[in-house]
């Protein structure tokens, strides 16, 4: 019931967000048809504005837009004029979803064990090595890691393709480049969570009762220690699933991240609003999923 209510509250939220995006992107200076060359006649420009309803007052444009939206139509892209925004989302989003999900898996797969292990081995050399790794990954941005990976694995050793999106082999480098950064963050969250939990009273109590260290840590402590990672996962996954401009550009991957950035640079109004709605929906739904996971992991959490 609680989750259903949350899901329903998404509708007014999206209305507000889409309205803000709709107005703000139009308030930004410069327009979609400001280019290096002007058409030969001002009439041509006027026609372009009329074709995309840009000559009408904003509120009229917005109402017409909502009408289209109700029919599931995000409108035509003002930049890619043979495509609708829906066309582009349909082609590019699956690629970003795939890349993002794999990078998310990579980040969790590397980050959680590293974080767990460094916490357990606190103060020993394993801790220092693991923490150095996570600090490095957090500090080095994707546009540095990605070219380094390409240089090593694709150009020097010729093991993997340099770019493009054609086979599972093509996914390895971008997934690693995208996932490494987040694996560092997750490792740090996990280590913190683990250290905090290990000082909790119930852990001491369990230990006093003679529970084996292994059972204690994996079965009881881990479950609570992973909570910060879980709450971080919602926004992280929304971020990863909607693509990365940098990684998609470097590896020439046909994902949605490029459109999010270029859409606003190109003042592609319909594209920007469509993608904002998409991103907001993902974010809300994933946060909801996180809250749901909480109820499973932490018996103290209950929603009415």
């Amino acid at each position, binding site marked *: 019931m609680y989750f259903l209510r949350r899901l329903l509250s998404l509708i007014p939220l999206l209305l507000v967000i889409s309205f803000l995006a709709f107005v703000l992107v139009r308030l930004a200076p*410069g327009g979609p048809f400001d280019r290096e060359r002007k058409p030969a*006649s001002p009439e041509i420009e006027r026609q372009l504005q009329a074709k995309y309803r840009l000559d009408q007052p904003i509120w009229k444009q917005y109402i017409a837009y909502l009408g289209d939206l109700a029919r599931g139509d995000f409108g035509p892209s003002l930049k890619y004029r043979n495509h609708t925004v829906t066309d582009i989302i349909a082609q*590019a989003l699956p690629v970003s979803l*795939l890349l993002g*999900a794999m990078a998310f898996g990579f980040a969790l797969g590397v980050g959680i064990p590293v974080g767990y292990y460094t916490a357990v081995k606190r103060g020993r050399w394993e801790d220092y090595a693991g923490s150095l790794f996570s600090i490095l990954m957090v500090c080095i941005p994707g546009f540095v890691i990605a070219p380094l990976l390409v240089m090593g694995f694709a150009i020097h050793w010729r093991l993997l393709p340099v770019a493009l999106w054609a086979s599972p082999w093509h996914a390895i480098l971008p997934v690693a480049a995208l996932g490494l950064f987040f694996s560092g963050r997750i490792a740090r969250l996990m280590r913190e969570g683990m250290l905090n939990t290990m000082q909790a009273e119930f852990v001491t109590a369990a230990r006093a009762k003679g529970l084996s260290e292994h059972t204690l840590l994996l079965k009881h402590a881990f479950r609570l220690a992973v909570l910060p990672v879980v709450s971080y996962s919602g926004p992280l996954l929304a971020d990863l699933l909607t693509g990365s401009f940098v990684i998609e550009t470097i590896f020439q991957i046909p994902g949605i991240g490029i459109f999010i950035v270029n859409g606003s640079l190109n003042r592609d109004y319909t594209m920007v609003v469509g993608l904002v709605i998409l991103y907001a929906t993902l974010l809300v739904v994933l946060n909801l999923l996180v809250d749901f996971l909480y109820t499973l992991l932490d018996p103290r959490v209950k929603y009415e």
Partner: protein
Amino acid sequence: MQIAHRATGKNPLARFFFWRRLPRWSRRVAPIVSSLFILPSSFVLTSCGHREPPANITICNANEPESLDPHIVTGVSEMRITKALFDGLTRLEPRNAAPVPAIAERWDISPDGRTYTFHLRPNAVWSTGEPITSADVVWSWFRALNPATAGDYAGQLFYIKGAEDWYNGKIKEPSQVGIRALDDRTVQVELNSPLAFFLELCSFPTLAVVPRQVIEKHGDRWLHAKPLPTSGAFTLGAWRVNDKVRLLRNPRYWDAANTASEIIDVLPTGSPNTALNLYETGVADIVWDKDLVPSELMDVLGKRPDFHSFTYLGTYFYRFNVTKPPFNDARVRRAFALATDKNRIISKLTKGAERPATHFVPEGVANYSAATAPGFDPDAARRLLAEAGFPGGKGFPRVNYTFFGAAGGGAKLHGKVGIELQQMWRDVLGIAVELRQIERKVFYSSQSKLDYDVSMSSWIGDYNDANTFLDLFTSTSGNNRTGWKSDRYDALIKEANLQTDLQKRAEIFRLAETILIADEAPVVPVYFYAGFNYYNDAKIKGIWQNILDEHPMQYIYKKGRGVKGN
């Protein structure tokens, strides 16, 4: 040990026991989390399973095409593709980019140079088999002239009698427009005045012949129609956004026998480094956009034998806003021009085959003889500035140099040029110019609104004729963007375009250009662009360098992998 034994045991129940031994919470969470990965991974395995045949040639072209509708496209990279798909009455041959017959096999020109009669090729057919008739040509041109098509380049047809009035709705009767089908195979075109470059214009995408049958049915999304009838040497095999455009040889093309490659992949590459990586690892055969050359590597790349540079039909320059002081005074503008050391910008920044621009129209343009403007002359610059009332730069108002910035590609250069110019003007004239970097769309909007003092600018010609550069600065041109108006200049450009004697015409252009760059100087040319293509000569054939950077794809093939077995 026991657990491990059970888990790997042959009994199917063993797995279940292993499962039971996991903490209870993880048994509930695991399905949710794992479905997040299993779904996409299974998607990878299935979607990557389908294999396309490899392309004969793979080309890195700049950026995802905005459109592949020839009547709408504005960018060079899009036009390269549309020209492979849709022919005009003429097309450009690959060596010198001169117009040669395409859908029209021959034409007659009236003695006054104003009426062209085109005879269409009897074997010209759509890729779907129907004949291409004069009605298709007339319909296509009227579509390009239809305001609802909203093509930026509709103005390319305004040279035709009545076309502009038709576009603006002043004429309602199509028969008053100088485009007529005399019979199934003959199209007659009447121009406002003789036009030295009309045959070349007929190869321009805006004048391409497009398929009425699908456009009327599918509207803006007609390029997604299957099958898509094309009039050019290729058909559209696939168009996946930001992935690739795949071109397939059109076997019904009238000149199909000379189409050298079966499949060409055109990649929308946004980053110069990625383009170079793809090329170096053999994925791409050709990289052919000047924005796809990493400028940091120009010193190294420029010396390689597979790196081909050539004079390009483009000029890098800066504009003055002449509508307000101090640049409403021609002496101030000329002083700035004289203080600009163009050689330094080339040797220090562009480092390629660019040439210092002593005039506005690039070298090598047809129907043109160059005007001259004085070059770098600090003393003369200071004298002029003193005459204008600012000796040694004293009392000069604060002005800005406006440009747009970008993190990568060719646009990185604009900021560097700005810094260099700022330094020259400070050292020579004693003037402090403020650098103002803004976003690209804001930049073009401020340039149009004359919201700047000095503005970085560039222009790539649309066709190989001096007019494509000089008519920018007529007082009615939307691309003038300086506020500068000169009746004499307007009159000269008009006179030149009425002149049928090409030598006399070039002379009139020279007089006009002298006003533009030497006397009035609302603009200062800095350098002429150089174009770059990289490909291995020994392997890739059928590609040549010319001023228009025109490389019809139908001639390009990889040695040993061409259609004709060559």
